[in-house]
């Protein structure tokens, strides 16, 4: 893997100071305090990533880390935020909601969970069952040399804890809603932990939305363990404000014969980054990692995928698509690692980018580290524009140029959207994208 610079970055200092105020603020179990201290110490040594770090080559992080952030202390009154509009479509899902990093019970729904399933905010677990968190949290996070993961560990805030017991299959999705009001210039560090025990199944929708009042910085970490022969379906929607910063990490640890499909739709943030890491804890795993990023203006979307096949019969598929307008920068950095001695690996990767302007830029970097011959592997990347012949065909039937472009843009994204796991979410995503690319809400009217 890649290495971060060894010199501490000057920008770390404010975070060390901020950390002191956090430490002074509250009482926590000693093990948490110890984990925080060790993370901040590592961050102090390593500093934030720089462009010399391969995985951070194109994304400038200075605008993020040089801003003066505060820690969340209070949540705006949810009554005044009109949050209902974000959840009206959820179709009976269970939900945990957080506003500016703070859990909002009034807006959460954890009633009538099946026996044995535990869904609670991390803060509640810390108060009531800290030993469970101590045992499970952080087991599958590869901190390695990533300053932002360390930053999250040091400042780890509230987030979701979900445990689905052995053999239980949740019939309704679980929504994790992270709202940022922008009323305070906060850095939030959502910390989510999902454990699906052997043979269990869950669909989790992880959503980040902004309310447009000002700048903020989300630095989230979601850690998932999918047990033997268990199923995990995950939709991750990042629709933060265009002035906000979003760094998100997803660690997927798949045990023997586990199946996982995770779809990341990223349409917001001034600088947004999402990294998924899939690790095999046993043979026979299947993992589909899908992504759609839509950026315009001067915004940046950085998408990192690392699929590590360390066991036999690991199957993976990456499908990432970028839609880039104006002077936007879209990055796809996808790795396939097949470790020595593994057999029966099947790994595929596709990245396609659609440029809607002459000034948008797509950087696509497939990275293969294959140390075995017993593998079926493919990868392909394209960067292109809308097809002139298709546009002409649509227009020749009377469809206005704008609508024709919107239809083709939508068609480009359709196969990724089709992979969104929850039907209600899929429809909702069409909405987000309609706002974003003004593509006439084509698919919404189609579905209703």
């Amino acid at each position, binding site marked *: 893997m890649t290495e971060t610079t060894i010199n501490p970055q000057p920008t770390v200092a404010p975070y060390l100071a901020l950390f002191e105020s956090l430490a002074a603020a509250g009482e926590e179990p000693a093990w948490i305090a110890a984990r925080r201290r060790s993370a901040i110490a590592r961050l102090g040594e390593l500093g934030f990533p720089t462009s010399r770090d391969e995985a951070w080559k194109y994304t400038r992080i200075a605008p993020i880390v040089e801003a003066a952030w505060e820690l969340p202390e209070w949540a705006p009154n949810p009554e005044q935020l009109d949050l209902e509009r974000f959840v009206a479509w959820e179709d009976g899902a269970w939900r945990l909601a957080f506003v500016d990093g703070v859990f909002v019970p009034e807006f959460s729904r954890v009633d009538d969970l099946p026996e044995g399933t535990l869904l609670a905010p991390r803060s509640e677990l810390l108060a009531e069952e800290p030993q469970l968190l101590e045992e499970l949290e952080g087991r599958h996070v590869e901190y390695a040399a990533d300053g932002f993961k360390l930053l999250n560990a040091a400042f780890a805030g509230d987030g979701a804890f979900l445990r689905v017991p052995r053999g239980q299959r949740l019939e309704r999705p679980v929504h994790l809603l992270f709202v940022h009001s922008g009323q305070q210039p906060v850095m939030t560090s959502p910390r989510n932990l999902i454990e699906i025990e052997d043979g269990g199944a869950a669909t989790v929708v992880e959503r980040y939305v902004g309310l447009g009042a000002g700048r903020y910085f989300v630095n989230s970490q979601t850690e998932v363990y999918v047990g033997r022969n268990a199923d995990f379906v995950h939709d991750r929607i990042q629709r933060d404000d265009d002035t906000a910063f979003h760094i998100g990490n997803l660690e997927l640890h798949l045990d023997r014969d586990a199946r996982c499909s995770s779809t990341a739709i990223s349409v917001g943030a001034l600088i947004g980054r999402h990294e998924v890491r899939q690790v095999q804890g046993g043979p026979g795993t299947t993992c589909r990692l899908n992504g759609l990023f839509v950026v315009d203006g001067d915004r940046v979307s950085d998408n990192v995928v690392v699929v590590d096949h360390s066991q036999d019969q690991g199957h993976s598929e990456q499908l990432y698509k970028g839609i880039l307008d104006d002077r936007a920068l879209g990055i796809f950095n996808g790795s396939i690692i097949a470790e020595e001695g593994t057999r029966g690996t099947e790994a595929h990767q596709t990245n396609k980018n659609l440029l809607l302007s002459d000034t948008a830029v797509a950087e696509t970097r497939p990275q293969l580290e294959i140390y075995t011959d017993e593998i079926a592997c493919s990868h392909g990347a394209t960067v292109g524009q809308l*097809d*002139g*012949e*298709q546009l*002409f*065909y*649509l*227009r*020749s*039937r*009377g*469809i*206005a*140029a704008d*609508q*024709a472009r919107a*239809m*083709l843009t*939508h*068609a*480009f994204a*359709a*196969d990724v959207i089709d992979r969104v796991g929850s039907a209600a979410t899929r429809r909702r995503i069409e909405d987000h994208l309609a706002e974003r690319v003004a593509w006439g809400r*084509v698919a919404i009217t*189609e579905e209703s």
Partner: protein
Amino acid sequence: MSMLKIENLHATVAGKEILKGLDLEVKAGEVHAIMGPNGSGKSTLSYLLSGRDGYEATAGRVSYQGKDLLAMNTEERAAEGLFLAFQYPVAIPGVNNMYFLKAAVNAQRKHRGQPELDAVEFMALVDEKLRLVDLKRELLSRAVNDGFSGGEKKRNEIFQMAMLEPKLAILDETDSGLDIDALKAVADGVNALRSPERSSLVITHYQRLLDYIVPDRVHVLVGGRIVKSGDKSLALELEERGYGWIEKEVGAV
């Protein structure tokens, strides 16, 4: 009344002059056929009339229903009733055929100040036109032309034409590569639209189609110009004798 009047049309594609002084007039209610050797400019003419980017008129005039056709953009021409059945219809993965058709029908209705069709009205229209054109209903729920056979693509073009009920339909070799059943379906589609206020321009290499769609006039396009016009018997003569004698006659390229 004149439906289409082309006068001394010169046009370039990628900087190369393809149409070199073309004259053609189609009156309302008439069906005209255009025949001509490969590369003579038939498709170029149809694209130019539809307003495709990159096809530039450098001289001459085209009036359509009394309006300056070249001043309109592609979608305006379509909404004003011009329809092109493509020689090679493009596949559009990810765009549902039915959805596309509804968008097209309603875009045109909106342009004409008519109320848009709702889902029920639209389906009724689809049912009616499906009976006319023998197209597998299943194709409507697929992406536009995606994975369609050659014949299915051509039938889909005719189905679109039936749905959109154009004033002037240009069929660019819609008959090429079709079996006799499909050929009849195409002819039925064109004939169903025949009326005193509609016209068709049928580009073809084969007289066979013209047995079913009997043209009022047949034109021969050679080297970017109409070099000979006649009645239906000209098509028969071309089929027998080829184009060599005409090219010799006019001394064309």
